[in-house]
């Protein structure tokens, strides 16, 4: 299996606050990498750096062997190969579900509108949202909105899907319908990096779990190793707190 993503000694700070501290990470094709860690540990920042929404201070990021942290590279071209889903969905409120999904295929990837719509409908049908195609996002439940957001980033066939706490803005009852899409994608072999607080879900999909603390990966390994049998004291402490909050 080839390395799709490779982060080497990535460093990022905001106003003197070091958020990513010489962080290295390798993501192999068809695997799911799960980032766990306390609030403020740098999970979102890491994903935003991969997507070039933030500029890193040092280190290198490679996508399919190409250095995307090179300032001379076309940012737009790199983002065409990455999909990102946000905690707050970020659907475009002035566009229907179908228009949200087909915007990038049509305008960025130059796919004919009819074809883009057909492809979008295939995805919507697959995830039971076909009847919502012509609705505006504000008429959808949170779970439906997030599923549409996932489909929107899938519609351009990304090499890697970056998912940033996609269920933490949702009611507990809606979480599962969103997570089941991710399970399906994992089954399809989609390469994913996801930040989550859902440890049970992490156990199900993760090929590798990384525990982040103050911008460093303190512990990494299979879900079995990191979540069930953590070695690092900080990991143990974090999992204990999560456990107490009733999320394991």
């Amino acid at each position: 299996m080839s390395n799709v993503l490779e982060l080497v000694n990535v460093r990022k700070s905001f106003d003197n606050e070091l958020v990513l501290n010489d962080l290295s990470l390798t993501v192999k094709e068809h695997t799911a990498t799960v980032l766990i860690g306390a609030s403020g540990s740098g999970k979102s920042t890491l994903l935003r750096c991969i997507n070039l929404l933030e500029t890193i201070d040092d280190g290198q990021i490679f996508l399919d062997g190409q250095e995307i942290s090179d300032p001379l590279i076309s940012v737009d071209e790199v983002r065409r190969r990455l999909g990102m889903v946000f905690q707050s969905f970020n659907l475009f409120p002035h566009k229907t579900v179908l228009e949200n999904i087909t915007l990038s295929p049509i305008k960025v990837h130059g796919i004919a509108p009819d074809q883009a719509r057909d492809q979008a409908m295939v995805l919507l049908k697959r995830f039971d949202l076909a009847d919502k195609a012509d609705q505006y996002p504000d008429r959808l439940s949170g779970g439906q909105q997030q599923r549409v957001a996932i489909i929107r980033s899938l519609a351009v066939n990304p090499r890697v899907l970056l998912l940033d706490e996609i269920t933490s803005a949702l009611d507990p009852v809606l979480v599962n319908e969103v997570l089941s899409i991710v399970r399906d994608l994992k089954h399809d072999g989609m390469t994913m990096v996801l930040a989550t607080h859902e440890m049970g879900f992490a156990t199900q999909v993760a090929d590798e779990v990384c525990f982040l603390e103050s911008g460093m990966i303190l512990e990494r390994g299979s879900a079995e190793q990191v979540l069930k049998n953590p070695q690092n004291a900080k990991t143990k402490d974090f999992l204990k707190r999560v456990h107490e909050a009733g999320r394991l």
Partner: protein
Amino acid sequence: MLNGPDQQAWSPSSRELERRNARRQISRKQITIAGISSVLVLGALYTLIITSPGWQVVKDTFFDLDYGREVLPTVLRGLVVNIQLSFIGGFFIAVIALSLALIRTTKSAALTPFRFLATAYVDIFRGAPLLLIILLVGFGVPALRVAGLTSNVIVLGTVAVVLTYSAYVAEVIRSGIMSIHPSQRAAARSLGLTSGQTMRFVVLPQAIKRVIPPLLNDFVSLLKDTGLVSILGVTDAVRAAQINASRTFNYTPYVVSAILFLLITIPLTRYIDRVIRRSSAKQNSEGAI
């Protein structure tokens, strides 16, 4: 959905019927009070004006019905000029203001000097009184005696109004653009849209929708402010009234002109209020989700 079997079988309880009855009585009482107080206040006002010592003079010089009827066609022709000016000017204002707003919100390095110029432009024309700009353009440009530059007062007056209003409207549009949450931009960029595409397909449509109510208000102001170009000698409604009034020393034409403006602006502002109420109701419902 609401017409289930339970819904059809329901009939209001006696307690509910009592409540409705009470509510009806309260509202009847309030209507009576409103009616009496209106009659009293308006009646007092009317008597005060009618019995004032100068009323007869005021009535003859400001509210001369026959004379009003006589000048109505002239003033109306003038008003057509105001309306034309507003629409033609409105078009150019929209184009220039949008360009200014886009230049001021872009981060493109190549546009840096334009960004500086746009900021200076907005500062100057938003800060100076419109009347001064009209005088400066209307009398200054012909004084330059540059061949090819027009000395047509209608054109110069419109240019002055467009210069000033472009600055106002640019700021309204810019505030709309800045009110769109950065996460919308992040979502668009992460889908691979360029910054230009993000502006065009994601940010601007939402921003414009948000600023339509204030823009409609600006249009009403524009319509009124076109009356200021009369100072250059443009025969608009104000100027037409002025010509007649100074000929006869009867000010009824001014009143006619004012009434004509109000006949347009009042329905327009009522309509705008409705638009604003509808859009804020929609935004509130969005917020509730």
